[in-house]
């Protein structure tokens, strides 16, 4: 799409250089740990070495004797304020600090506040805790067996470790379709625990002003407004009132879902600041971050696909066991305990589908955050894209051909899926065809056949995913009752420059740039003169924050709608200035002109000046608008990815030779930023596919708890990503845009697994669980007798 605006205005479609970058390339960003307030003290946390244990004593005397240690806070301290437990977003409960027992290794046990971060760490070492170990449950299947130790003894009457059962679809009709199918395939798959590992860890500076009763919290949060309301609701009984709470989310060093939850550390820091009357800084270290912050995934899935002999898919059935750790602290919209897993019918025209899920408590940290995806979409896409390839193998059909045969045809959009979603727009065959043409699919297949003759292991994997992002329409989507709209407030200054504030919060996505471009597109004010602000609840309009690729679908739309409200008022002012009626005016970028007399016009800058100096009688002065945008539907970005791998028979190492991503996120605001988002998403798809996993031994000891063994890919392991696009606008978004930040994280893992399985399929391999480490792959090669 050609940009409608000039390079000087820099509206949609321009690869504008980012407005954020001048500060970041100079080291002048302002992240939480950069904030230093007068009198500020430091908090550090004592953590449990046990995964499940009763606390019999906490002795703080030695810690308190250290010069510079100001206080030690325990669960008993917080119990005095009834703040030792807090609610989770999924209406479960989570300990802030324990008074009775710990439920996972690295759980917070006590907090030390000291004048300096080194002394606080000394204090942590000096706190003595006596534990009485209890039986540990790490496997969710064992957790649900009769006779398993019941973990949540705090819940009266709770007699097992089952959290909830959820299902979607028509079980009976799906069972009938399976019974009538020519072919049925079934595949177990496990998507292990992983961690977002944003390069900045989590932390806060809590600053309670005793004189004014105002609490300011500088905090690594993706959703500052929601956090403010949660704080007001949870701590209202100790006198925190919402108008006296200010949450500031400064520059964030990545988020990816890990900065959505309220972690105990934040709450303890707030309590400490209130108690001490000093600003308290808490910044976790990397090991705390990996070991205690919210995890992602941990789904044990069994996917079944039914089809006719010719490859027409007829029904899908998926049964999942979700490991939630000791509490359900997933970050989902409240009515969706399994997130948006019901997108699992994917890109295919499936008439019948049924999916059910059970969730279990185990002795692991809580979580269930997204890891750069929209509420469990990654798990759903993994299931459908993997089982599709299993079906292709069963039928002896090329996986591309099987996909073309089953794609929802472009003419069927908007498309109602078997599990109830209305897909807004899509052209799946076009994206896959483009990917195949660009990568030279037929030639790659020929090469693979030749190599196979020579015993070389080469594989080609396809993933044609559909995402569901931009939560969401208020009829279904809320968090603790707060509807998932988002907001924009735009003010035009007398000289025609603008400030625009939003309810979302960038963590690297470049909102200061893309939102400015949206305002530029709608009003013709150069993007460089649109100042974008987010993250301060005292100034920004209320919004639900940034996660699940919702910023452009919700707040971006609100920006366009607010700009259009401004344009409507600007038209009245222009009519007044030009002494014509509104009906006689037409808009082109940046000005209104009189129909048939284009020389008679008023620019937006002239109109803005008049709004303060010469506004029409009876009209309010000023030029500003607010919009709270309630999206009519979600957006459904999609794409087709092709991955080519070579496998080393000596080491089992998977080498990604090429990876091409063809994405469709509707109309694009900033092509440079979209490409960057896809590169990053691909890398966060690569990571769990080949490297990352957090696992536990039978005693609940974590492995993968530091960067020593939690393998975030470096530039050496990461291939040189290739990208391309198709453009199928969203019919309901005011700009025709869809979310994009997470598509690639969702689409990449199945493409990589499908490529590796494809390389080994002639040996009888149908599936490999991620991460496909060299050891795992080499063991398969050895078992099949082809390891060198």
């Amino acid at each position, binding site marked *: 799409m050609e940009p409608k605006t000039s390079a000087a205005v820099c509206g949609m479609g321009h690869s504008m*250089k*980012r407005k*954020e*970058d*001048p*500060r*970041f*390339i*100079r*080291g*002048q*960003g*302002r*992240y939480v*740990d*950069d904030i*230093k307030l007068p009198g500020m003290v430091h908090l550090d946390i004592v953590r449990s070495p046990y995964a499940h244990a009763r606390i019999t004593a906490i002795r703080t005397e030695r810690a308190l004797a250290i010069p510079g240690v100001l206080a030690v806070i325990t669960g008993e301290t917080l119990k005095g304020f009834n703040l030792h437990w807090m609610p989770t977003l999924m209406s479960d409960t989570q300990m802030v600090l324990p008074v009775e027992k710990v439920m996972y290794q690295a759980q917070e046990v006590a907090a030390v506040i000291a004048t300096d*971060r*080194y002394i606080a760490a000394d204090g942590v070492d000096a706190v003595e805790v006596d534990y009485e170990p209890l039986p540990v449950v790490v496997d969710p299947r064992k957790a649900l067996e009769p006779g398993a130790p019941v973990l949540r003894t705090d819940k009266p009457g709770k007699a097992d470790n089952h959290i909830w059962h959820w299902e979607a679809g028509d079980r009976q009709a799906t069972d009938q379709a399976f019974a009538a199918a020519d072919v049925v395939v079934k595949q177990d798959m496990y998507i292990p625990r992983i961690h*977002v*590992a*944003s*390069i*900045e*860890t989590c932390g806060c500076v809590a600053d309670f002003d005793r004189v004014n009763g105002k609490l300011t919290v500088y905090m690594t949060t993706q959703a500052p407004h929601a956090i403010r309301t949660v704080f007001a609701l949870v701590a209202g009984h100790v006198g925190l009132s919402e108008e006296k709470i200010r949450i500031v989310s400064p*520059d*964030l*060093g*990545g988020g*990816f879902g890990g900065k959505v939850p309220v972690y105990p550390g934040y709450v303890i820091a707030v309590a400490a600041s209130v108690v001490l009357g000093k600003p308290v800084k808490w910044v976790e*270290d*990397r*090991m705390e971050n990996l070991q205690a912050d919210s995890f992602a995934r941990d789904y044990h899935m069994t996917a079944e696909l039914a089809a006719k002999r010719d490859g027409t898919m007829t029904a899908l059935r998926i049964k999942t066991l979700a490991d939630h750790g000791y509490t359900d602290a997933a970050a989902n919209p409240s009515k969706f305990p399994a997130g948006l897993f019901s997108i699992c019918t994917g890109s295919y025209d499936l008439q019948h589908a049924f999916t059910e899920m059970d969730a279990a408590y185990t002795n692991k940290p809580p979580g269930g955050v997204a890891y750069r995806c929209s509420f469990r979409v990654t798990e759903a896409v993994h299931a459908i894209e993997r089982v599709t390839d299993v079906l292709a193998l069963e039928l002896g059909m090329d996986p591309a051909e099987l996909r073309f045969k089953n794609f929802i045809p472009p003419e069927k959009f908007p498309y109602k899926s078997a599990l109830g979603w209305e897909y807004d727009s899509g052209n799946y065959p076009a994206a896959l065809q483009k990917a195949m043409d660009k990568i030279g699919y037929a030639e790659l297949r020929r090469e693979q056949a030749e190599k196979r003759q020579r015993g070389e292991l080469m594989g080609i994997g396809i993933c044609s995913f559909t995402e569901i992002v931009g939560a969401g329409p208020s009829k279904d989507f809320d968090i603790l009752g707060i509807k998932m709209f988002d907001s924009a407030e735009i003010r035009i200054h007398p000289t025609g420059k603008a400030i625009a504030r939003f309810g979302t919060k960038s*963590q*690297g*996505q*470049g909102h200061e740039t893309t939102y400015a471009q949206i305002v530029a597109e709608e009003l013709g004010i150069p993007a460089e003169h649109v100042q974008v602000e987010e993250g301060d609840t005292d100034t920004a309009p209320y919004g639900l924050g940034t996660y699940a690729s919702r910023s452009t679908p919700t707040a971006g739309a609100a920006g366009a709608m607010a700009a259009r409200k401004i344009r409507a008022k600007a038209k009245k002012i222009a009519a007044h200035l030009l002494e014509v009626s509104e009906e006689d005016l037409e808009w082109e970028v940046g000005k209104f002109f009189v129909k048939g007399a284009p020389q008679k016009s008023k620019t937006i800058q002239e109109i803005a000046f008049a709004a303060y100096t010469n506004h029409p009688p009876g009209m309010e002065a000023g030029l500003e608008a607010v919009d709270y945008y309630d999206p009519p539907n979600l957006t459904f970005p999609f794409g087709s990815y092709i991955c080519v791998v070579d496998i080393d028979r000596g080491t089992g190492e998977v080498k990604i030779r090429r990876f091409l991503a063809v994405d469709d996120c509707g109309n694009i605001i900033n092509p*440079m*930023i979209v*490409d*960057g988002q896809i*590169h*990053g*998403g*691909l*890398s*966060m798809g690569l990571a769990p596919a080949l490297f990352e996993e957090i696992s536990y031994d039978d005693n609940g000891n974590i492995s993968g708890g*530091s*960067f*020593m063994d939690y393998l*975030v890919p*470096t*530039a*050496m392991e*990461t291939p*040189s*990503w290739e990208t391309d696009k198709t453009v199928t606008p969203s019919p309901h978004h005011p700009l025709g845009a869809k979310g994009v930040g997470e598509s690639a994280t969702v689409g990449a893992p199945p493409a990589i697994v499908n490529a590796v399985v494809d390389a080994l399929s002639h040996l009888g391999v149908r599936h490999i669980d991620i991460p496909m480490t060299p050891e795992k792959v080499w063991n398969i090669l050895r078992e099949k007798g082809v390891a060198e």
Partner: protein
Amino acid sequence: MAHHDITVKVQGVEHQAKVESRLLLVHFLRETLSLTGTHIGCDTTHCGACTVLLDGQPVKSCTVLAVQADGREVMTVEGLEKGGQLDPIQEGFRQEHGLQCGFCTPGMLMTSYALLQRDADPGEGAIRQAISGNLCRCTGYVNIVKSVQHAAAAMRSTPNPQTPQ
């Protein structure tokens, strides 16, 4: 805890301080000197967010003690811009969208700057090798490689007296 008097030159300016033996260089820079451009992303020398130059060599300042920098020269991200003029590596990252959240960026810039001091025309492999001690979660590295190449090209076309050609 023993204390030591140290003198460290940072961006060419001498700083004297009394520091604890255990004080890390990264905390000396961030907290004693308020140079917060150098970030902390891990504590185990893996992520490279804290990379600075010590006597011209990139080091991870989370595993260097402040006392080890005594009598030596440190350069941080704040020292790249000279006389209001961005260093070509900074300009490269901006032009090629080599950063997103900005948190790994200072370390990436310092590592890349050091690479370009010793190699005026690094290929993709050499760049990837050089930055393999710096983790980035946002960019997928593709545009970081381009950023470094952009800077290298700019430096070759406008010889800078500080850069050996």
